[in-house]
């Protein structure tokens, strides 16, 4: 039993927060995990990704081999395509449809969405709308995590528990807002 996941986004969109929640949930569910993340130069508004590996048995490589990932979870549509070669042929993309345009040559968003839809299993989520509905557009990462939750091998209860842990220091309102974002994402994907 194992699951390899690529988390993708743009520096500052909070993919490491998604990773934190899944890592800790996996630990609680008795799984081994390795999570390779990006620090430093690449964080400054550039493309960032994290390789997250969950398994019942020992995990050797910190990096996922090409073709081994089951899931790409992306907070940005163009970024969801950048790592497609890591997906196995039956792999699934869960992504936001809201472009983050900080480059001059960002392709037309329709083309990006067509390309995403060409993948057999693609779940497209208007994360900005749902995050605003939950209380703040900053919660888009938790919307996407919610949308991906049913594909993850860790339990939903455990995920929610660590969303609480993650935002605890920011007060109850922020915790509840992020939990709402998670729920809205989950409902939108089902």
């Amino acid at each position: 039993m194992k699951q390899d996941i690529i988390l993708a986004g743009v520096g500052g969109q909070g993919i490491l927060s998604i990773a934190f929640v899944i890592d800790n949930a996996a630990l609680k569910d008795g799984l081994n995990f390795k999570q390779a993340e990006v620090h430093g130069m690449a964080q400054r508004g550039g493309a960032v990704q994290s390789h997250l590996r969950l398994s019942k048995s020992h995990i050797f490589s910190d990096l996922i081999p090409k073709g081994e990932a089951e899931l790409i979870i992306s907070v940005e549509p163009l970024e969801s395509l950048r790592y497609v070669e890591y997906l196995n042929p039956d792999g699934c993309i869960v992504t936001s449809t809201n472009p983050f345009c900080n480059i001059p040559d960002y392709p037309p968003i329709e083309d990006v969405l067509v390309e995403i839809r060409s993948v057999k299993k693609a779940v497209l989520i208007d994360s900005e709308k749902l995050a605003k509905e939950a209380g703040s557009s900053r919660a888009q990462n938790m919307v996407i995590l919610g949308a991906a939750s049913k594909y993850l091998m860790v339990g939903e209860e455990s995920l929610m528990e660590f969303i609480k842990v993650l935002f605890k220091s920011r007060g109850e309102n922020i915790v509840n807002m992020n939990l709402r974002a998670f729920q809205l994402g989950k409902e939108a994907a089902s």
Partner: protein
Amino acid sequence: MTREILLGDEAVALGAIHAGLSAGYSYPGTPASEIMEYMIRASNKEAGFKATWCVNEKVAYEEALGVSFAGKRTLVSMKHVGLNVAADPFMNSAITRINGGLVVVVADDPGMHSSQNEQDSRYYAHFAHVFCFEPSNHQEAYDMTRSAFDVSERFNIPVMVRMVTRLSHSRSRIETREIKKENPICYGQGQDWTLLPMNACRRFAHLVDAQPEFIGLSNESPFNLLDLKDYDKSLGIIASGIGYNYVMENYSNQENCPSLLKVSTYPLPEALIAKLVNHVETVLVVEEGYPLIEQTIKGLFGIPEKKLHGKLTGHLPRTGELSPDAVREALGIKPREHLRIDSSILASRPPQLCQGCPHGDTFNALNQTLEPYSQASVFSDIGCYTLGALPPYKAVDSCVCMGASVSMAKGGAEVGVFPSVAVIGDSTFAHSGITPLLDAVASNTNMTVVIVDNALVAMTGGQPTFATGEKLVQIIKGVGVPEEHIRVIVPLPKNLEKNIQVMKEEIEHNGLSVIISLRECIQKAKKKIKKGAK
């Protein structure tokens, strides 16, 4: 025994703390920064040891030497190029008689994710004739750091732990062991630490004589694993560090893996290598970094009647980072099927300055100031402002190593570059910019130094800086730059015209000027607001 989720860097830090650490020192640098960040957090919680950022790696290393002299255990950590700066104390400390355990952790950056080069620190360990550990996973990072202290005290040498980005910045779970007490204070002996020729010759001979013992230690080390398969003698693999992970990743279980030697310590375990090489026909060497093991085994003439494969033979890429896929190909295993898309849509998204970054305003002013001068050169340094090399600014012409902006501007100016401008951050200035500025003062070189003071070390995650604001101005005055040519500007869009005027005046001044462009990093300002709002 407890279990914790840690970055590879943090596992190193915790290993050191549990080994009875008295003091840790470092200068920020990706991918090593998280070692010191963890130590600082831990020392705030449970007092007992010191953990401090230093002004540069050489200073950090020497502070650690002082701790070792006093008989206490100490860790100094840095990124790979940091060891170039600390190479002087590193090489020489190998000849002293290290007293309290001294462990130097160097994090290499194969693939240059956040660095100017991808040099391999194992060569430094070899160069200095000291012992080196190379962990492949988090548990080993913890365990080997602990062992490194024991080896350091047993042989009275500094010991290196070589990390790489993928392990430094990967998170996983480790199991910790008992916590050791600090060493009592116990001074080193003068004759062992005073490297006058009479002492240094004796000490160096001693170090050279000890090499067979180090090799013996490698041969016996529980971290080096040899597994010979009797049923297949065609291929054998020597894999070190995370190269080992990529090999194992490609075999579904230990059983179907060919004969394998996992190397985790240097100098190399010669006896184990001989056993593997004698057992098989073809040897594949899988190592992250330069082909050190491969080249050592190959020598000038190779091994008679055997084939040796690796980076030198093109079986693995000679540059960049290894991956499970590259290793799979070298192992001759069919690639996995994977999804494909039309990749022409993938516009690249390079890192860039944050919205509202003070450096952006400095570059706007500088670009406009320099427009009339067709021959201007802007020598940059290393920090967030190096991103000024990319569009839309395209404002700088060089970035080589910490401090080089000031020295290169001086050299350039002396042979006719005009305007010759240096751009350097406050932390890089404290690290390596003050000494070349002293040089420029001595010659009153016709150049302009722009210090972009954002009040922290932004590039590496916001560590504290040593020379910012008024203190920075005082240092520059103290170095001897004339007061009327030390100008402070505030890089904001509304000040653009004023700032251009200041830059023009100082460039036209026939001599040395320093312009301090002072405004806090946006990320730091945001954090302050967040804190205040709580």
